[in-house]
């Protein structure tokens, strides 16, 4: 059995992360893959999305041709407003982030360490460095979660004892949603909460770069087909 045959798609990882977002939660979704989480809010719940460039309570992308390029998100994609939106400037926007007013931030990762350290801004390989709001977003949100494939494209673990890439933040991540499992970070350890039923703990441990702590209850990670 290849991991590729059973692993969750990005959309499925985003779906799983979305299930943990409460109604009325203030949420920032990182640029790219994390933006997908907004699509999968459970029925009856409505989170309020924040974007660093100064908008609260934005909605879906407008239809092609309907874009107003003064109304964009941090990924520079066109957005729309929901009723009860607000505009504010960048300093106020990051006061919301850094001041602990967001309930959840969901980010991508190159590596996550069992200490909660996150590396997601630099591959350390030269070129033009760019950090954006990543180093701010990992601080202040009540819960900082990561969504990621469980391993790199080359099969190397992304959940590790210590990050090898330049850090985005120290001890900031509390939960990781991967293509194979849901793992909490508690007391400097990875604690396995959910895993795909088709995968043994041993197989999961084999593709994880640090020891998985196994609590009494490990739930099946069950995600519908979504896209």
């Amino acid at each position, binding site marked *: 059995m290849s991991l590729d045959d059973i692993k969750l798609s990005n959309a499925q990882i985003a779906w799983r992360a979305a299930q943990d977002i409460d109604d009325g939660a203030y949420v920032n979704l990182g640029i790219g893959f994390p933006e997908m989480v907004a699509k999968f809010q459970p029925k009856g719940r409505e989170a*309020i999305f924040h974007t660093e460039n100064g908008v609260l*309570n934005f909605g879906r992308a407008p239809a092609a041709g309907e874009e107003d390029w003064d109304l964009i998100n941090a990924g520079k994609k066109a957005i729309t407003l*929901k*009723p*009860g*939106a*607000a505009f504010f400037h960048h300093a106020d926007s990051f006061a919301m982030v850094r*001041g602990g007013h967001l309930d959840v931030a969901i980010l991508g990762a190159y590596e996550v360490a069992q200490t909660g350290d996150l590396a997601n801004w630099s591959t350390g390989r030269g070129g033009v460095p760019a950090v954006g709001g990543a180093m701010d977003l990992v*601080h202040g949100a009540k819960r900082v979660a990561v969504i990621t494939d469980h391993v790199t494209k080359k099969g190397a673990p992304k959940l590790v004892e210590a990050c090898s890439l330049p850090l985005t933040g120290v001890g900031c991540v509390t939960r990781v949603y991967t293509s194979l499992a849901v793992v909490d970070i508690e007391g400097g350890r990875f604690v396995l909460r959910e895993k795909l039923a088709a995968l043994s703990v041993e197989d999961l441990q084999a593709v994880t770069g640090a020891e998985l702590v196994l609590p009494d209850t490990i739930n099946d990670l069950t995600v519908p087909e979504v896209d």
Partner: protein
Amino acid sequence: MDKTLSSVAEAVAMIPDGATVMIGGFGGSGAPIELIHALIDHGAKNLTVINNNAGNGHVGLAALIEQGQVAKLICSFPRSVDPKVFTDLYLAGGIELELVPQGTLAERMRAGGAGIPAFYTPTSYGTELAKDKPTAEFDGKMYVQERWLKADFALIKAELGDPLGNLTYRMAARNFNPVMATAAAVTIAQVSRIVAPGEIDPESVVTPGIFVKHVVEVANPAQEEALNRQEAVYP
């Protein structure tokens, strides 16, 4: 999501003895009189209150102090035309005072709301209010290090509010209210009118709802200055 509560009594019921409470207003403008009076009725004691002043006359903050509910006041200007309640209690040793320059008070709250644990300001350098505070030199000038200021609750007064907690204010009644809204764990706003989401232009929102936990409508709110000109007393 609907952050509206049905009464000021319900809004303040959650405030326990010993809480730290920011109360908006500058003099009488922007003081959430109805929330304060509800807090008097509620009876929470041993409060630390943060306000620019120490109340006036025998309503609002002055009345809260008069009822013996305030153990400590953090403010910039506890003197005024009729500050008798605070003055008498303070001189009798019945209330603790932390005196903070007004701009530093506002900036400490702003820092609390913005996740800035400490900052440097020229204000108060070389004065007795900077005693025992760390100082540092930047570019040849001396500054005082100040810490953030946060609270368990903020009681604020706004003009319009919507169910998401977005707020506008009325003229100079804005003052400390939007800053306090950011610096408290639980911000409770009394508003003159609750409107539907979207009725407040997103461009004109002063306090975005993320900073507000509860909104309660108080139509035709009392104005402290007007009450005092009528020599009102609460309770």
